[in-house]
Structures are given as structure tokens and as C-alpha cells.
């Protein structure tokens, strides 16, 4: 075992920075008096901004680190930037909300940062052991965050997430064990090399890969591993939900993309069918069940499930060498579109939410357009983006996803995708109908950071859809292998 070199450290520099900062913040927070926890929030955001700065300088640099345990490449940098920006949004949404809901604690922000470090490690993990480490590092703080309100539904949410999450982690570990048994390694590149040679038991490898898929499917909330999502999303404090919905999904997909395209292309013929079914089920169930929801948090939870299906759809042809780069780029592009619309729409939900879980029904949005036109326009943009309607980023993203699926020859799956998009239009439009076409008298909390987040995400959703070149370029550097 050679000691880590400077290059090794450089490959995970943003991660190291953020981890060190978080540990420091944990201590500093002890000296920040209660009621002044905004300082903690500011310091947390500062740490993220710093890590983000370093991440940006790593654009275009590719390097393996720690004897191939982690990787720095276009993919990881893209994911890191996306995750760090998500972290900033997560803090912006939490800042006023936690005060208002009386759950402002310093550990909120440190937990969020720890979870973020786990997500970043996931983006760089090139070894199943690191994948597992990252998975736990990102999950455990999220379990705690879900329960941080210490109310019954919040605690229920935390416990449910923890139990099912632990169960899913078990699948990942077991899968890792089987894969190690089949190939004698946990390193993704070695697994690929071993699997390509004929001596490996492909059955063991396939079972191992399928078990890992279960674990990742849980994290990204793919049907049939989605059962926890609506309850956890609904019970957790909304600012946590917003961060979780974006961050955990991004991390789950990043892991799925990297592990499968690096280690398992040889068994893609077995995996494609499973991915196909997962994707189709997720799109259909997520969208169908969302239609009958009356609570906005549950509706957005099912919408989050459905979107996992769309991203999976692009990933189905991952074993096809000609399409795999497009599949990953499309998936990453869509994750950006999804994250932006996600934070925006959860921001609006937070603006309308009252204490004791009031203000979360779809009917509470009636009349919003008359009283708060800007907020209603923003929400309309997010809803259109989630449907995949122009002129929004969601539309460009879906275009990309469908193209990837069709280029891989999965026109049937793309057909399911567009038909379920049509279904989704029904429930997203219901929000718009309530805001614009019904009478009501909604009350809205005005918080500067919340307003800023909503404004930035709404403007980005429209503007980036019109000039998406740079995002396309960046996404297409996020190619693995």
C-alpha cells in the first residue's frame, strides 16, 4: 500500500475540502449561540461555494486516484458541480423555512454537508467498497434530517427511510460480495476485465449486478423500490425533501451510471431487459398514482418517481457502445433539468406551507395567480418543465432522453415515455388550473433566499432551454470509459 500522493489528493480535492470544512463547522457550531444559527448556514454555504470553485477548475481534467479506487473525470466533475449547486439551493430553501417551522438547529447544515460529501464521493467512486462507503455517508445524514422536526410524521419518515434504506444497503453489500466472488475484485475496471474473460461465472456476476440494481433503484426511487418515497417526502420537513429529492436521486443515478457502464457492459444483454421493465414500470406507476394525489408533497413525490423512470429509459441501451455516451450525457443533462425544476417547485411549496403541515393541499393553490403573479408564473414554468413542455429545460432534456432511447432501438419504451408524459400533463396542469382558474385567498411567506432560489431556478429553466449549448457540451464530456 503506497501512501497517497499529491495527485491522489488532488483527484478528490473538492471532497476533502468539504469534508474538512464540515468537521470544522461541527465544532464551530458549538460556539454559535442558539438563534444565531444563520451563521452556521452562511458558513455551510461558504464551504460549498469553495468546493464548487475547486470543482470548476477540475473541468476537463481526467485522472484516476488512490490506485484506481476513485476517479476524476468529466463525469465526476459534472456530477460534483451539480451536487454542490444542489447543496447551495438546499441551504437557501432551508434557511427561512427552518426558522419559521422552529426546527432551526446547527446540525441541520452540518448533516446536509455530510450527506453532500457522500454524494460527491459517490460520483468519484470507482470501487464497490467506495460506492458502499459513499452510499452510507450520504444516506445516514439524510435519515437524521428526515426526522429532524421531531414531530410524529417527521419521525415516522426518518424511521421508515432508515429501515428501508438499511435494507437496500444490504442488497448493495450482498451484491458486492457476489461480484467479488465472481471476479475476485471490487474495482470496477478489474471487474470489467475479469468479466470479459471467459473463466468468470457470469451467473454470479449477473445476480450480483441485479442486487446492486435493487440498491440503486431504491435510492433513485424506481418502481418497485419506491414504496418509501411518498411517505418520506411527505413526512420530512419540506426543505429536507427538496434536497433529498434532488441530491439522493442524482447520487443514485451517478452510481448506477458509473458502476454499470464501467463494470457490467458484458452482461448488458441480461441487464437491458431488467432496466427496460424497471423504467417502464416506474414511468407508468409513478405517473398514474400521481394523478390521484391531492397533497402537493405526495404529488411531487410520485412525480419524482416518474422522473426516475425517464432517466432510466435513456440508460437502457447502456451496453450499446455507440449509444452509451449519449445515454449518460442525456441522463446527466436531464438530472440538471430535473434538479432545477425540482428545487424551484419545492421552493414554491415551501412558500405556501404553514405550520402543522397546513397549506400543502392542491386546493391551497387556488387563486395564487391573482395575489402573487410572480410566484404563479414560476410554478407554471416548473410544472411545464416537469411535463416536458417548451420553452423549458425539461423539454430539451426529455428530447435528449427520448433520442437516446430511440437511438438504442427502444422505440417502444420511448412510446411509453411520451404517453406517460401526456398523463403527467394532467396532474401538473391541475396545479396551474388551481393557481389561475380558481378563486382563493392563499397566504405566502416572503423570504429573500427562498424568493431568490425560485427566481433563479425559474429563469434558468427558461433561459438555459433557449441557449443550452454549454450544458450540452458539459454533459457530453460526462462520458465514462
Amino acid at each position, binding site marked *: 500500500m503506497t501512501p497517497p500522493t499529491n495527485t491522489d489528493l488532488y483527484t478528490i480535492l473538492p471532497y476533502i475540502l468539504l469534508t474538512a470544512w464540515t468537521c470544522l463547522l461541527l465544532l464551530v457550531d458549538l460556539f454559535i449561540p442558539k438563534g444565531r444559527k444563520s451563521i452556521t448556514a452562511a458558513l455551510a454555504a461558504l464551504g460549498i461555494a469553495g468546493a464548487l470553485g475547486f470543482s470548476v477548475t477540475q473541468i476537463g481534467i481526467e485522472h484516476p486516484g488512490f490506485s484506481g479506487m476513485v476517479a476524476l473525470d468529466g463525469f465526476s466533475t459534472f456530477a460534483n458541480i451539480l451536487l454542490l449547486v444542489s447543496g447551495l439551493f438546499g441551504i437557501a430553501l432551508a434557511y427561512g423555512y427552518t426558522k419559521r417551522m422552529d426546527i432551526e438547529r446547527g446540525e441541520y447544515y452540518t448533516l446536509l454537508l455530510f450527506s453532500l460529501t457522500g454524494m460527491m464521493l459517490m460520483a468519484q467512486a470507482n470501487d464497490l467498497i467506495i460506492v458502499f462507503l459513499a452510499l452510507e455517508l450520504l444516506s445516514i445524514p439524510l435519515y437524521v434530517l428526515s426526522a429532524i422536526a421531531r414531530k410524529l410524521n417527521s419521525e415516522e419518515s426518518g424511521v421508515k427511510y432508515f429501515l428501508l434504506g438499511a435494507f437496500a444497503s444490504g442488497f448493495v453489500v450482498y451484491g458486492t460480495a457476489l461480484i467479488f466472488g465472481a471476479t475476485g475484485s471490487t474495482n470496477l475496471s478489474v471487474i470489467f476485465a475479469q468479466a470479459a474473460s471467459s473463466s468468470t461465472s457470469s451467473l454470479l456476476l449477473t445476480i450480483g449486478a441485479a442486487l446492486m440494481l435493487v440498491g440503486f433503484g431504491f435510492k433513485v426511487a424506481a418502481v418497485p423500490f419506491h414504496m418509501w418515497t411518498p411517505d418520506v417526502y411527505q413526512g420530512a420537513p419540506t426543505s429536507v425533501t427538496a434536497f433529498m429529492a434532488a441530491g439522493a436521486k442524482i447520487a443514485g443515478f451517478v452510481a448506477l451510471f458509473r458502476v454499470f457502464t464501467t463494470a457490467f457492459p458484458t452482461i448488458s444483454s441480461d441487464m437491458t431487459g431488467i432496466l427496460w421493465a424497471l423504467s417502464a414500470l416506474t414511468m407508468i406507476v409513478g405517473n398514474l398514482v400521481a394523478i390521484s394525489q391531492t397533497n402537493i408533497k405526495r404529488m411531487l413525490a410520485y412525480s419524482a418517481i416518474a422522473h426516475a423512470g425517464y432517466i432510466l429509459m435513456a440508460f437502457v441501451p447502456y451496453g450499446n457502445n455507440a449509444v452509451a455516451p449519449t445515454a449518460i450525457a442525456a441522463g446527466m443533462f436531464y438530472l440538471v433539468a430535473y434538479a432545477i425544476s425540482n428545487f424551484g417547485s419545492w421552493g414554491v411549496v415551501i412558500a405556501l406551507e404553514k405550520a402543522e403541515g397546513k397549506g400543502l393541499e392542491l386546493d391551497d393553490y387556488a387563486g395564487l395567480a391573482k395575489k402573487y403573479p410572480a410566484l404563479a408564473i414560476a410554478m407554471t414554468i416548473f410544472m411545464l418543465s416537469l411535463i416536458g413542455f417548451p420553452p423549458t429545460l425539461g423539454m430539451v432534456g426529455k428530447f435528449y432522453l427520448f433520442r437516446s432511447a430511440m437511438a438504442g432501438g427502444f422505440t417502444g419504451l420511448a412510446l411509453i415515455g*411520451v404517453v406517460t408524459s401526456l398523463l403527467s*400533463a394532467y396532474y401538473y396542469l391541475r396545479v396551474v388550473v388551481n393557481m*389561475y382558474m380558481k378563486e382563493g385567498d392563499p397566504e405566502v411567506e416572503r423570504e429573500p433566499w427562498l424568493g431568490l432560489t425560485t427566481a433563479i431556478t425559474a429563469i434558468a429553466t427558461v433561459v438555459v432551454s433557449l441557449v443550452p449549448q454549454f450544458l450540452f457540451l458539459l454533459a457530453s464530456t460526462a462520458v465514462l470509459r
Partner: protein
Amino acid sequence: MEFLLQPLTLLTFLPLVGVLVLLFVNAEQKTAIRWIAMVTSLITLAVSLWVFSMFDASNPDLQLEAKYPWIQVAGWNIYYYLAVDGLSILLVLLTAFLTPISILSTWKAVDERVKDFMIFFLLLEVGMTGVFLAQDLFLFYIFWEFTLVPMYFLIGIWGGPRRVYAAIKFFLYTMAGSILMLLAILFLGIKANTFNVPDLLVRLPDIYANGTIPAATQMLLFVAFTAAFAIKVPMWPLHSWLPDAHVEAPTAGSVILAGVLLKMGTYGFLRFNIPLFPDATIQAAPWIALLATIGIIYGAAVSYAQADVKKLVAYSSVSHLGFVMLGLFALNAEGVSGAILQMVNHGLSTGALFLLIGMIYEQTHTREIKVYGGLWKITPIFGTLMLIASLSSMGLPGLNGFVGEFTILLGAFGSKAIGNPWYAGLSALGVIMAAVYILYMFQKVFLGPAGEITHHHELKDLNWREILTVIPLVVFMFWIGLYPKPFFDILAPAVEKLLSALPL
């Protein structure tokens, strides 16, 4: 930034300037808001005339091109590409022409949330103009889908009692068609590696010839595009969203819906289906003609049965657009030119009918035919204008409707592609039926003994603003009816070019 100064870019996005100005105006200053919208749409009209003055009618190709690479990364080959030719110029002018008229019609009719209304209306104009000008499938799709959003709000906020239902139905119905087109667009893009229509027209013959896209797939692509356009037209049996949308929409919405939005469907056939999928077009022509004929007869018959004037006019659109479809798929010069002219005619006559119905509805708040009667004596100006619009709609010689329908029938009779003169024969019945339902309506509303509304209301005749709203339409009805040659001259070279590419 040079692309901003291109005439067609200006024409398309000029209404956005109005939208930007409106965003900063206090919502209470309704008159100012109306004037800003009006002036914006008039400037847009002026720009459209400027574009027309630069348009060379003898040139069959795309003109005034604004073509810039847009998304040229990651295997995408997408252009920002606007251009106009003989197939689209009249529709572009129609859009620019109907928008100020519609805005004028809302002067008194829309008094709530005027600012939002005008913003959506101007956004709608951007979308519609874009649809007629876009020459890249990706860009086209964006404009095409985008038109749904403002129209959805126009129906859903300012519509009648069942407006929410109608708005959602309109949105979902139209989206159902477009998503199939989206898949077909992506498929074409993957196979031909371009989304740009002129390039596709160059590459597709080889792609069809070498079997990369076999004939059966070409048919599927044709069907997918047809799904989007046929719903928009709407062709029988996909028309059921139309009466709801029309009846619930505010007057200005109905005018634009009938006048321009439906034409987006027929234009889609003309611009995309026919040239992109020539073999499938020829194969499908008899079937489309069959559906069109059913639509003509069905629309006319159902119109006759309506108790609501607006619904009657709405169903008559199904019938009239059946004629347009019949003409397009006759696939000969008479049929196609007649169809394009009939698109304009329908916009003029149905637009005028909806405007006039809206004006009387503002006073009486009912559109039931049976409560009217004897209106002519009280409101002679209204009656005269209504008579002209009705006669134009039913195709009386001397007015515009006749020229279009006659040319279409002429084309359909001699069409090799349809191959059966019976469709034209049956469709001619539709002309007679149109006379029946239109004259029936006119008689019940304007002639005979005074109905209960006519009795009890102090009905006023049209004022100057209202007359001014309709007069421009009437002028064109007579112009096209009496001297259609300049209009046909604009179309002819482009139509000839379109048809010469077909393997007929």
C-alpha cells in the same frame, strides 16, 4: 446578434417586446395595456407587410432565410432556421392580420385581468408566426407546442362556464397528437442526422431508396405526423375537442383558434407530411380523402342540429377544414392552391362570424338560436355584416368561400391521387348543406317575428369600433371573391415545386 435583425426574426419575436413592456405596466391601467398590445400587434402587422414586400412571388423556394447554427453539439444538428415561401406567406400575413383585429374585439369584452390576457395573446402570436416560419423540426416543435400554453390560459381564465374542462381537454388532446410527432421527429433526426427540413428533403430520397427507412416505417412516420396535425385541423373523428374549446373560449380566442390555430394543422400536412413522406402520402391520399369527405358531411349535418350559434359555427369548421384536407390530398395544383386559399378564407369568414357572434353575446349573454329572431329590423348593420360573413362561409359566388371550395372540388374531381370522383361529388353535397345550416341560422336569428331576447333587450346596433373590427375582413372577402388571381399567383410556383417532387 445579427440574427435578431433578420426580417423574419423581427416578425416572429416583435410581440415579445410588447410582452416585456406590459410586464412593467400597472395592471390597473387597462386602457394603456390595451393600447400597448394593439400598437405592438399593429407594428407586427407592418413588419409582416414589409416582409411581404420583400417576398418574391415568382420564386418557388424558401426566402428571407434566417439560418444560424443553434445546438451543434453532442450529435445534435439543430438550426435556428426561419424562412418563408409561397406555401406559408399568406398564413403568416393572416396571423399578423387577425391578431390586431382580435385585440380590438376585446376592448370591451375583456375587462378582467386585461394585462394577463394581452400578454398571453401576444405570446400566442409569437408561437403561431413561429410555426409558419420554422424550417427546422426541433424549432418547429417548440413553437408548435408553445402555442398550446397561452391558448390554454386564454380558454381557461377568460372562457365560459365550462372553461377549465375545455382548456384541459384542448391541451391534452393536442398534446396527445404532438407526442407521437415528437417520436417521429426524433426518428427522422437519428436516421438523417438533421432536423432541418430542406436538408431532410435532400437526404430522404436516398434514405428511402437504400432501405434505411423502409416503406412501412415511412408510413408509420406519416401516421405519427398525421396524428399531430389531424387533431389540430381537426379531422373527423378527432374533432371532439373543438366544439368545447370554441364554445368556452372568449371571442378573441375563438377567432384566433379558428382563424390561425386550426390552419397550423393543415399547414403541417402541407409543409411536412407531403414533402417528407411522398410515398406514404400517395398511398394514404384516398384514405385522407375519405375522412375529409366524412368530415365535410358530418360537420355540416351536426352544425344544422346545433341550438347554439357559436357551436354551429364551430362544427362548420370541421366541415370547412374537411374541404381543405380534400384539396391538399388531391395532390394536384388546383386542389392544393384551392386548399391554401381556403385556409385563408376560413380564417376570414369564420373569424368574422365569431367576432359578430361575440358582439351580440356581449349585449345579451346568450347564444341560443331560438331566443333571437327579427334582429334585422333592430340592428341592420350587424345584420348586413353577418349576412356577408354567412354567405362567404357558405360559399356564395362573388365571395371568397366560393373561390376556395370551387377550386378544391375541381382539383378533387380530377385527382389521380384520390382516384375516385365520388369523394368530390359527395363533398359538393357539403356545399349545399352549408347553405342549409347557415341560412337556417340566419333566418331564425335575423328574420321572422321578434324572439324573446329581441323583445326584452334594448339591443344596440354595432358601434364604430365594432364595425371597424369586421370591415377589414369583409374587404378581403370581396377581394378574394372577385379577383383571386393575385392570391393564386403567390401560391402557384411553390405549389408546383411541392407537387413536382411527388412520384405521381
